[in-house]
């Protein structure tokens, strides 16, 4: 298991045990991170599992597809390091990674 710390918009920190290979979104949902909605359940169709990665992690993983970029661009709270958490598989090196959650998935 890999421990990942989600930081909700109100500052609450939720440490989640994630399985290697599962999408970051799944780990967040299983860990009760309320700010990760994931309305389409991980099919990259809704954009409601947006998270903000740390810059070094954002640069390290493969970039977003055009559809993912569109979904992020049209959201109300996009940032430079925004990603859809359904598109990021958990790897062992993520141990201790901190992931911020937007104030709303709109």
């Amino acid at each position, binding site marked *: 298991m890999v421990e990942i710390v989600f930081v909700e918009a109100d500052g609450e920190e939720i440490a989640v045990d994630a399985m290697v290979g599962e999408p970051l979104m799944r780990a967040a949902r299983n860990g009760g991170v309320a700010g990760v909605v994931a309305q389409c359940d991980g099919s990259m169709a*809704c954009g409601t599992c947006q998270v903000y990665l740390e810059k070094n992690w954002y640069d390290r993983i493969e970039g977003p597809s055009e559809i993912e970029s569109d979904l992020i661009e049209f959201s109300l709270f996009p940032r430079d390091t925004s990603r859809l958490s359904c598109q990021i598989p958990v790897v062992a090196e993520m141990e201790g990674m901190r992931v911020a959650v937007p104030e709303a998935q709109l």
Partner: protein
Amino acid sequence: MTKPALEKMTGKPLVQTIGMLTDSQQTAIRNIPSHDNARIPKIDATRPVSMFTGQDFYDLEQRHIFRKRAVPLTLSMMVGEPDTVFAHDGYGIPLLVSRDKQGEVHVFLNACMHKGAKLLEGCDPVKKGRITCPYHAWTYGIDGKLLAAARSETFENFDKSKHNLAELPCREAGGFIWAMLDRHAEPDFSSMDEQLVADMAAFDVDSAHIYGRKTFQLEANWKCVLEPFLEGYHVQRLHAKTVGPLFADVPNVTDVLGVNIRQISGKLNYTPDCLDIPNENVHKSVTHAYNIFPNGVVVTSPYYISVMFLMPTAVNRTTVHYFMLTRAPDDNEKAKELYKKSYDMIVDVFGNEDFWAAQMSQAGLESGALEEVVYSGLEETIPLYYGILESCLPQQ
């Protein structure tokens, strides 16, 4: 609310003087005679009852007016900021009204392009950049673009760009949004008269605060609902216990702006001299009542403006969206008290008096008691209006 939006709303004088109105409005106001000199004409005007009760006439109006020409739909301030959207069902057609990130207004059919499911319910504006269909999670930008469809790889030859939302032509001016209800009809925005738009801009409708709004479902033909806003004849009678005593039993100064009508009248306290009192609130002594063709109504009051959209959904059914606009939000105790009292009063007067009378009238007209309706000299704007309406219909 964003800071620039709030500044636009609050950065203007709270009291509107005559000098802040358009030259055309000022000229009309200066033409209001003193009550002693008001001349009430005698007229001989009637209309057949079938205009209000006949399915044939209703169908003609729908075909040649409501589905052929752009109609007033709602206020710009309902989508006052970018990334705002709401569902609009008033015309009996599910619509979405949005303002995208770039500030452009759109009107769409509120139907997912997969299976037609309504994308959004509820008529309150919400901040959103995207809308996800609750059925299969197809997601659209609020500019109508299909951004993503769940498991899109399971559709053979799927071209996302061919499934954007169905958009209706719309335009925004003077604080109003007009739209074509039939997206296949040749867009006709000729009702949007330049002077009308300038008058509405002078009232600052485009930066007004929506203090309150209410939807009424009425059992009346939409023209029965409109008529009280085209005449002063009923004011002293129907409104005897409420606002009637504030008004004089005199005709209006009426101007036709394209196909729209502007009526201006002096209240009971009006004298020509009172227009020249420095810094005086012009709306204290003068009432403006507009018809935005065919079914929009704007009525000014001293501290607020009423805007109504009277939307026919059947020959004897009308949905009314009522809005009370103030020049700024109620950010102090005095304003809170004044606006609340005003809102309660006006919703009572329109709802329990004007709309009530329209429904009573509809019931009587449907009884077959009358063949035609007759209009007095204090109602002369009604036949004027019907002349305009009829000019848009095929000659009988």
